[in-house]
Every structure is written in C-alpha cells, then in structure tokens.
C-alpha cells in the first residue's frame, strides 16, 4: 500500500467530559494526539471493504440517523403494546461512550417516538443500566437531554445494587433489577459494538446486558466467577430465555456500528436475528482491527478518553482488549484464558505469577502506558501492576488513590506533571517511538507516524488472514460456517 496518501493529520479526540469519575476537564491541558509526530489512519482506507457509515458524516448526519432509525423501528411488530400499558426502553452506559454518545441518544429518542406513533402508548420510560459507576447513566441522561425528552420522572439510571427481582431460568434462580422489569413491556436498546470481547468472547453479544446492566449483583457475579471464561455469557442467555423476560420482551433496536462509525439501525422482534448479525458480522468488522493490533510488536499505549482505564477506545478496540491482543480473543479453543479477563486476574497467585503456567502475559508489546486522561470506576490496578504506567497530573493520581475500586492503582504507577513530560519519559525509557492513542478518534485511529507505517503495511495481510483462516475457525467454534455471512446480508 502507498503509505503517504493514507497518513492524515490527527483526528480530534473525544473531548474530556465533566463527571464524578474523572478529573475536571480543565485539568486536561494537552491531548497526546496534538503532539508533534502524531497522525491518523482512516479505517475505511486501511480496510477498504468496510461498509459505508452514516455517522460520522458531516452536518445533518444525526438528523439522518434519527429518520433512518424511525424507519427501521417502524418495521417491527408492536401490536402487543396497548395504549394504556407501560413500556420500559432499556439502555446501557456503553452506548453513550460510542462515537461521542449522540448516536445512541438519537436511537433512544427515535424508539420513544415510534412507539408513541405506532401504539398510542404514552407511558414510556427510560431505564439506563450501568457497569460499576452507579451514577454514570444519570450523567448521560442529563447530558443528552433524555430526562426532558422522556418527560418528568420517566428517565432514570439503575444500578446492580438496587432492589432486585428473582428470575427463574434453566440454570436456577438468577436476579434482575426490579426497575428494569417494572413495565408491561421492555424494549432492548443496544448496539453491535463488540467492546468487551475478553468477557463475552463474541458469543451472544447482543444478549449480554440481560446479565450485566439489567442484572443484579448475583447474576453479574455468576458471570464473572461461577461459570468460567468461555461459558460466562450463558448467564445472559439463561435470563433472556426465562419465561419472565420472554413475557415482557417486545423487540430489540440496535445501533449497527463498526469500528469506523454507525452503519445503520437494526430492529427486530427476534433478538437472535440481531444477535447473529452482531456476532458474525462483528467478527468480520472488528476482528480485522483486533488482529492487526495483535501484530504490533512494540509500542507506547496512551489512554486519553473519558472512560475508565480498560474502556478507552481506539478504532473500536478497547484498551482491555489491546492488553490481551497477544492472543486471539475470538479463538475459543486456542485461548481459554486471554492475557486479561477477570478470570485471568483472579488466577494470579501471591508471587505475582499465574497459577496456570500456560496463561499468556498481558500484551508484551505494550512497553509503557501513558495515562493522560482516563476515569476511575473500574478496578484497574492489575494493569498498573503489570504494565509500567505513568499518570499525568497529581490531581488524577489523587482521584485514583481515593476511589474505592482503585486504592492500589497508584501503588505501582508513577506521576508526571505534564503530558509532554510523560511522553518524553516513555520514549526514553522504552526506546520505541511507536505510539497508539486510545482517544476515541472517530472513523480512524490516532497514532505516531512510525506505527502508522507499520499498520498500513500489515493491514492487507491481516485482512486476508481474517477472511480466509481466522473467520472460518471462529465461525466453526460458534456452530456456523461462512455461508452465514451471505444469509445476513
């Protein structure tokens, strides 16, 4: 590939956001993408076979998305919803971290409007679940005006410690959040972004929130502690398949996204139709970027995004998955335990080494992590314990030191006063000038020119490997063959 034409000026990173989980945005003085030597690659140029996107897409893109979302949602059967009944639109925090958050907010608005239009039902509520930051979706509801859009008292954030409700499943009693199910009907509003491949292993991706953001602590702990790294996501299917959930499920409406943007909207009364798309097309769209990242032999990883440490994004890949990119996360047989997942973290002994010798280390290509801007609200000490980490600013370090889930994060990390100082330190200490920036740059990825050249060079072979070698294996392990892609077109 011709290098020169593919290297662009750095893309504007996602702006810091005011939140109780991060430092005041005014303290983020410099973004790493602004520094000399940084550039961007466009994913549609790296992998030209990626489908076109609506967003990012210039002025009017969000309006276009709203209209398209309404058209797609209108196609689903809503005859079960009576005008005098209640409907809960179920949302999750993840969606608001995608592509600036606006596209997901647009979807949530479109769902409400079409349900009113088609059914005459007025009692439509928004229930937005969280990960481990119990106020996070409350912040998003306000930021995107969903409280006023849904009306007084109709939009609320829910947390896994809120009052629960038992749900009888094929594997016994599991527990959901009562407020999620306190309506006659539920609508599952989500997205096809793969995000935590280390957890769900791209099995039943579309179903996962039923055991996470919609679930009580008991179910979430079942997922992360009771079933094992490759059976974990069955918790979600067990809950979704329960008579209770089935009796309330109206339909799913998903933002159809790729690592490069919003492709469209999918809505269906059968969640498994959406699930097949999310799972198998997801392998194709995201599998290539993930595999390409796994080919990076050395780099400095920069965190620079309003999200907890593991969830900062680059080209649709979260940092947590980059720390495990030395293994094939989609390979169910070859990678029972990736370098990072909670089961792996649990299985490190007191000597700081894995209990099972075959456990891969955290991605050894990451020579240092520069934590320019990332949030608390997720236990992240495992990363700073195993990857040399430099945190920018004493205020940020202090925030981590006083946050219950990260009391030990700064035990292993060092502090630099400025972004420039942190980068200088990283260059000198590691000897590499290759930098990958997890800053949510839309449509592409920000990195150093040296890394850009390497990625451009490796992309065509990766694309071929994924299509011809890896996808057939991944699909076989998930009970289908490549013809599924044709069916899903």
């Amino acid at each position, binding site marked *: 590939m011709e290098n020169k034409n593919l290297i662009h000026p750095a893309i504007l990173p996602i702006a810091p956001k005011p939140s109780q989980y991060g430092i005041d945005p005014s303290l983020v003085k410099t973004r790493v993408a602004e520094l000399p030597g940084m550039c961007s690659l466009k994913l549609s140029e790296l992998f030209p076979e990626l489908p076109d996107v609506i967003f990012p897409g210039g002025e009017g893109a969000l309006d276009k998305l709203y209209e398209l979302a309404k058209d797609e949602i209108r196609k689903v059967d809503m005859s079960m919803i009576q005008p005098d009944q209640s409907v809960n639109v179920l949302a999750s925090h993840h969606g608001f971290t995608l592509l600036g958050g606006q596209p997901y907010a647009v979807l949530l608005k479109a769902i409400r409007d079409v349900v009113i239009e088609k059914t005459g039902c007025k009692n439509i509520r928004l229930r937005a679940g969280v990960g481990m930051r119990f106020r996070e979706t409350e912040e998003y509801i306000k930021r995107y005006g969903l409280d006023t859009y849904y009306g007084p008292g109709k939009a609320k954030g829910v947390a896994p410690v809120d009052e629960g409700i038992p749900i009888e499943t094929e594997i016994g009693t599991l527990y959901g959040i009562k407020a999620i199910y306190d309506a006659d009907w539920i609508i599952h509003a989500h997205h096809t972004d793969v995000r935590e491949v280390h957890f769900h292993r791209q099995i039943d991706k579309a179903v996962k929130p039923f055991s996470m953001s919609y679930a009580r602590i*008991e179910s979430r702990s079942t997922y992360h502690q009771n079933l094992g790294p490759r059976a974990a996501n069955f918790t979600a299917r067990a809950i979704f398949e329960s008579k209770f959930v089935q009796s309330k499920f109206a339909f799913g409406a998903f933002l159809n996204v790729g690592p490069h943007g919003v492709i469209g909207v999918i809505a269906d009364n059968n969640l498994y139709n959406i699930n097949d798309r999310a799972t198998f097309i997801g392998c194709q769209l995201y599998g290539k970027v993930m595999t390409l990242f796994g080919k990076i032999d050395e780099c400095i990883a920069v965190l620079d995004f309003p999200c907890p440490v593991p969830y900062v994004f680059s080209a649709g890949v979260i940092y947590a998955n980059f720390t495990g990119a030395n293994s094939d996360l989609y390979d169910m047989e070859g990678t029972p335990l990736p370098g990072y997942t909670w089961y792996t973290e649990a299985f490190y002994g007191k000597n700081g080494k894995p209990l099972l010798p075959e456990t891969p280390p955290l991605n050894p290509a990451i020579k240092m992590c520069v934590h320019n801007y990332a949030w608390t609200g997720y236990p992240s000490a495992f990363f700073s314990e195993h990857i040399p980490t430099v945190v920018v600013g004493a205020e940020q370090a202090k925030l981590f030191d006083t946050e219950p889930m990260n009391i030990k994060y700064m035990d292993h990390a060092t502090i630099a006063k400025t972004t420039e100082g942190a980068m200088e330190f990283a260059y000198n200490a590691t000897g590499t000038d290759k930098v990958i920036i997890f800053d949510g740059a839309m449509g592409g990825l920000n990195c150093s020119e040296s890394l850009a050249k390497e990625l451009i060079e490796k992309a065509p072979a990766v694309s071929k490997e994924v299509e011809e070698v890896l996808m057939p294996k991944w699909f076989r392990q998930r009970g289908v063959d490549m013809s599924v892609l044709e069916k899903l077109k």
Partner: protein
Amino acid sequence: MKRVTMNAVVDQNLCIGCKICEKVCPVYAIQVTNRKAFSDDQKCVACANCADRCPQHAIKMVERAEIRELGVDVSKFDPKEIRALCEKAHLNPEQILCYCTGTRAEEVAACLLGGATTPEEVSAQTGIRTACTIECIQPLLRLVQAAGNELHPDPNGWRWYGVTTTAWEIPQEVKDKYNSRGFYFDEDRELLDRVVKVGADKQ
C-alpha cells in the same frame, strides 16, 4: 487487605429518611433513625454505595483523618483447613475473589475459620466486597456456606439475595442444548478444576 481512605458523611438537611443507603450498605455502617441517616465512621468501609444511590445526593465521601486497614492474618490459621474450605467452594486458596481489593480466597476462609458467620462480617474484617460490591458476591456466599453457615438474606435490605448456579451444577440437558452455540461449559469446568488444585501437592 484493604486501606479505607474515605468515609461517608450525611448532610442531614438533605436527607429525607428513605433508607436506600441502609439497604445497600454491605456492612451495616449507615442507619436511619428518626427519618435521618447516620453513618458510623468506625464501621464505614468506604464503598460509596450509599453516596451513589442516595436519591437526594445527601451523602459525600470525604477523606478520613486516619486511614483504617482491614485484613485477617492468614498465617494464624492451619493452611490445610484453609485449603479444605476453599476447595469445598471450588476455589484455590490463592485465587483473588475481589478484583477491587485483591482479597484472596484464603483470607476469606481464614476469617470464617476465625468465627465470622455472615458475608457482612467477612466484608467488615477482610475488606472483600467493599468497593464495587458486585463481582465477588458469589464466591463470598459460596465460602460462607461451605464453612457450614446458613445464608439468610436480610429482608429489609438489598445486600444480596442468594447463591446461584456454578460450573459444577449446570444440567447436562442445558449443556446439550446450547453447546453448539459456542459455550464451552465442560472445558471451562475442567479449567476451573485445574485452578483449584494448583498447590495442593505442596501440602
């Protein structure tokens, strides 16, 4: 081991006495009396659940004047007994149960061998489940139960409701039905069993 660096403080003027804070506190450190909540800074383990669920935003987490350290000294207990208890709950003594505090199974087992009988007592002594309060509830309940204690969730709270299925209990018909979708039930069970046994020969 957990360092408690913060403390919950209630603004009485904002509190409406709804008791949500009480219901989500993992260690009974906050209580409502005469329609006002009071937190006990000698019991508070700084999980911030109360502060993050209070509908009035009446609770703030503030830095403690003196840091409190929670932890149980494992070396005071017989390693064989610790291992036996952990294995009964399908856990390796060295495995980490709480991703936030790094509390290992052996410390929870030691705490139970030392006389604790409820998850709340174990949390107060070891620090397990005092940060996110989500992910380690199942192995904690499993260990409390394996130590011979009956589990009785507090009907006046939402702390936890009960134990759930593990890899060792999934019915065969469920596995047969869903295996082909890519769930590796038996392989994962085998992996978990191998983890449990690591170090057993050294004893």
